[in-house]
Each structure stands twice: as C-alpha cells, then as structure tokens.
C-alpha cells in the first residue's frame, strides 16, 4: 500500500472581482502521483502554482472538483476522520493563539488528537527540547517569540501527534539561514527515526534537492514531472533544478518569499 495515492486531482476557485464579476482560478489541473511509505517527495513550484491547494486538499480542508486522493488506503475526502489521525501539517504561517504560550498551544492541540494530560506532561518539554526550543521561553506568549522559534513550535505540534504522513507547506519560508538549517535537519531526523512519509511543498530549490528522494515540478496546476533530482536534471540536460524548471515549464522560476498563496 502506498502512503499517498493522488489521481487526477482537480480544483478550481471562483473569485469575485468587484461586485458582479466572477473569475475562475484553476489551482490544480488533474494532478496524479504516488508517494511510498517513508519517502520524502518535494513538490516544487512558484507562488500560485497550486502547492498550497494540494496540501490543503490532503489535509482535508478542501473538497476537490474531481479526482481522488488516498492516504494509506483511506479516501481523503470520505474517510476524513481516519485520514486526520494519520496526517499533520506544518505550513508557512506558524498559526498559534498568540497570547498563549508554546506549552499551552501544544497542550490543547494534543488533546484534539486524543493525548491525555498525563501523556503530554513529559512529552511536550521533551519534544520542545528536541526541536531546539529554549526551555526558559516555554511559558512566554507566542507573540513574544521570533519567527524561527514559532516555526519550531509548529514542528513540535506536528510531531507530538506522531503523524505517519507529514505535510510541509513551505516550512522554512521567511526563516533566517540558521533557523532554516535547524528545521531542515530536524525534518531529516524525523524521517529517519519515525518512519514518517513527507510531502514537502516548497519554492526553495536547494531545500527540495537536500531533503527529497524525488522532486516534482508543479506549474500552473500541472505536475510536469516527478523523479529524483539528479534524473530530473539529466532529463533536461540541466546543471541545476532552476534550469530544469525552466526547461520543463518554458519560463523562469519566480522565487518569492510571500508564501501562503491561495493556489
């Protein structure tokens, strides 16, 4: 059984321009791919390419217009409870109750996954220590923490629930180089130690090449290819992933640091 089976997934949004005009925005145009258990697959694409839509569909936050997705054999759109137990996510925005502390945010979130206070009392400090979060800042409100620290807490939140499929949507966007390296190192560690399957959506070419077994290029809602980075470069006769992207899509890779795009 594959960890993830995505078949012909399609999604379109309707956006209002002004009071009456409606605009159809196609985010995914029949995307298909599989991810094996324990594999790390990176989906590479510029802002607006459909990465976030793909992650939000797999996280059960969207319903598709067509196609299917199965997570460890469970239909992602019909068996949402089963899928939610297996999946967690780290996105570009850390997303916490800002006045609450890291421990408080992790504590209530763990309950939503059925973890009791007696289980998390020791787990939370341990996991925060593992992600390199300073012990003396555990009770500080999240709003007083740096972006890098907040993202470490986001990683801790995802790992606390022991997900077998980790969805990472630009997890290092906006981080300083040191925090970025720490987060990337931790993702590798989690994969090695917890046998987690990782789907990493990013516009960071180096990150995709460093962390992923296979790299896919998503452009304007189309998954153009998905193969190991070396094979991808060889196929297009490219020296770098950026060149491979140009060869595959016909246009330059527009890197942005905004993140959180609708598509």
């Amino acid at each position, binding site marked *: 059984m594959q960890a993830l089976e995505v078949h012909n997934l399609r999604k379109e949004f309707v956006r209002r321009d002004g009071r009456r005009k409606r605009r159809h925005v196609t985010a995914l145009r029949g995307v298909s791919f599989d991810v094996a258990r324990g594999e790390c697959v990176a989906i590479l694409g510029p802002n607006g390419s459909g990465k976030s839509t793909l992650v*939000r569909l797999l996280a*059960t*936050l969207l319903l598709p217009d067509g196609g299917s997705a199965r997570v460890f054999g469970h239909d992602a759109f019909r068996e949402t409870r089963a899928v*939610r137990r297996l999946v967690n996510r780290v996105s570009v925005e850390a997303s916490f*109750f*800002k006045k609450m502390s890291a421990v*408080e945010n992790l504590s209530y*979130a763990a*309950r939503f996954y*059925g973890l009791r206070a007696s289980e998390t009392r020791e787990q939370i400090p341990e996991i925060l220590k593992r992600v390199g979060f300073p012990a003396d800042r555990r009770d500080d409100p999240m709003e007083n923490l740096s972006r890098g620290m907040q993202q470490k807490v986001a990683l801790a939140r995802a790992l606390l629930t022991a997900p077998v499929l980790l969805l990472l949507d630009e997890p290092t966007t906006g981080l300083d180089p040191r925090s970025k390296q720490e987060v990337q190192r931790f993702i590798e560690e989690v994969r090695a130690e917890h046998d987690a399957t990782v789907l990493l959506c990013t516009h960071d070419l180096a990150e995709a090449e460093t962390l992923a077994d296979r790299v896919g290029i998503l452009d304007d809602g189309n998954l153009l290819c998905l193969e190991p980075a070396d094979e991808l470069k060889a196929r297009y006769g490219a020296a770098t992933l950026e060149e491979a992207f140009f060869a595959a899509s016909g246009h330059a890779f527009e890197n942005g640091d905004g993140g959180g795009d609708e598509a």
Partner: protein
Amino acid sequence: MRAMTLALRHELVGLGGVVERNIYLVKRYIWWDIAFFLWTVANTLTIVFIAKGIPAVGGKIDVSRVTTILLVGAVIWAYLGIIFEILTETVAWERWEGTIEYTFMAPLSRPVHLFGMGAFAVAYGIVRAVLLFGVVAAFFTLHVPKADYVAALVLLVVASISFIGIGMMTAVLPLISPEKGTQLGFVAQGVLLVVSGVYYPVSVLPGWMQALAKISPATYALRGCRNAILEGAGITDLWRDIWPLLVIGAVSVPLGLWVFQTGERYAKKHGKLKRSG
C-alpha cells in the same frame, strides 16, 4: 467494544481540550475579561435604573418588582451574549488567530468540538451571570423574599441547550461569510431577545412577534427565571417553561449541528476554510 471505548475516550479527551484551550484564553486575556465585565455592569445599571427613574418623572410602578424584572432581563441578555460570542468564536476567533485550519484538520468530531465550546460557554456564562446579578443587585434594594435561585439556575441550564443549538447555527456564519458572519450572529441574538420579552411582557408585542416568541427559548428562560425569583416558583412549578425548552433543545441542537456541518462542507468546497477568509 474496545474500539468503541477507545473512540469515546478519544472524543472525551478532545472535548476536554476545547475547554482547556478556552480556560487558557480566559487566563491570558483576564484584563480584557475584567474590562468587559465592568462594561456589562455599567450597561446593566443603565437599564435597571430605569425602574427608579419612572417614579422620579411622575410614573407609578412597583419599583422593586420592575427593578427585578429589568435585572433578570439584562442578566439573561448578557448570558445569551456570552453563549453566542463564545460559539461564534469557534470560527471567528480561530480565523483571526490563524489556528482555524489546524483545529478543523484535527481528528475531533464536529459535534464534540461544538459541544466543548458550548460546555465552556455555559460554565463561563453562568459564572459571569451570577456575578453580574450579584454586583448589580447590590446597587438596589431588591425585595425578593420568596426567590428560588436554584430553580432559576436550573432553568437557565436547561435553556442553554437550546441556546447552544441556535449558537451552532450562528457560529457557521463567519465560515460562510468571513466579512459579515460575526455581525449576522449579533443580529440573530438581538432578534431572539427582542421577541422574547427581555424588558417587557411578550403580550405588548405585535401579533407576528408574539408568534416568534413562542419558538424562542429566551421567552421561556426569561419568564421562568422571573417567576423563580419574584414568585419563588420551584422546579415543579416551572415545568410549563421547562418542557418547551426541552422540545426546542431537542430540535435546535440536531438542526444546529446539521447547519454547521453543511456550512463547513460549503466552506471546504469554496476554499473559505482558511485563516485569511
């Protein structure tokens, strides 16, 4: 059997998590809560002083009785406001904080999620309502020798089931319309109270409003609480208000869940289940 026990345990832990989160929020926003409570006290006083003001301008009323009628109306208005506010926060506050996607992708069933919010709202609302009643009552000489406060409290708890059901319906509004949803929730709360005789008997309302009053749980909550405090009506005497509340609750809770889940499906279809609307 074991699987069912585990699933039930999982849901109960999740429900505890919803309550736990709200307790943290009250703790972290305690000064905001105190300020809001003081504002509610001031607001309630402006209403209840009307009873003393009428004789001062030549009117003839039983000041103590009218004071109590207004006080019960204002306290229930405040209580209902808290229930609606907390349930509406299920979506609105989470969207503002940016946590909405993480909460809605957690393996917590929606009924348990909403009941957790409802349970916290009732507990928190009752504490606030009792404090408000006590503080405002201290400004007046209430003459309520027969008052059965326990019966009034029981009635309020029974009414809360219906309030939660209606609150679930309004909670989904910010999910469907991020810009107008919260305000529409306030409109629903206002309509509910205006037809329910919050500061006046329902009989003074136009016929069509009286018809609406019959299906509003606030009508029975207000009438029952006033009877318990003014006339000393016990739980048995309050049955004529309790049974309609139970019937409305039995209809409004499943209906509220259905409305919320339908709204959630709509939001997932149209990409509205996200932090920025």
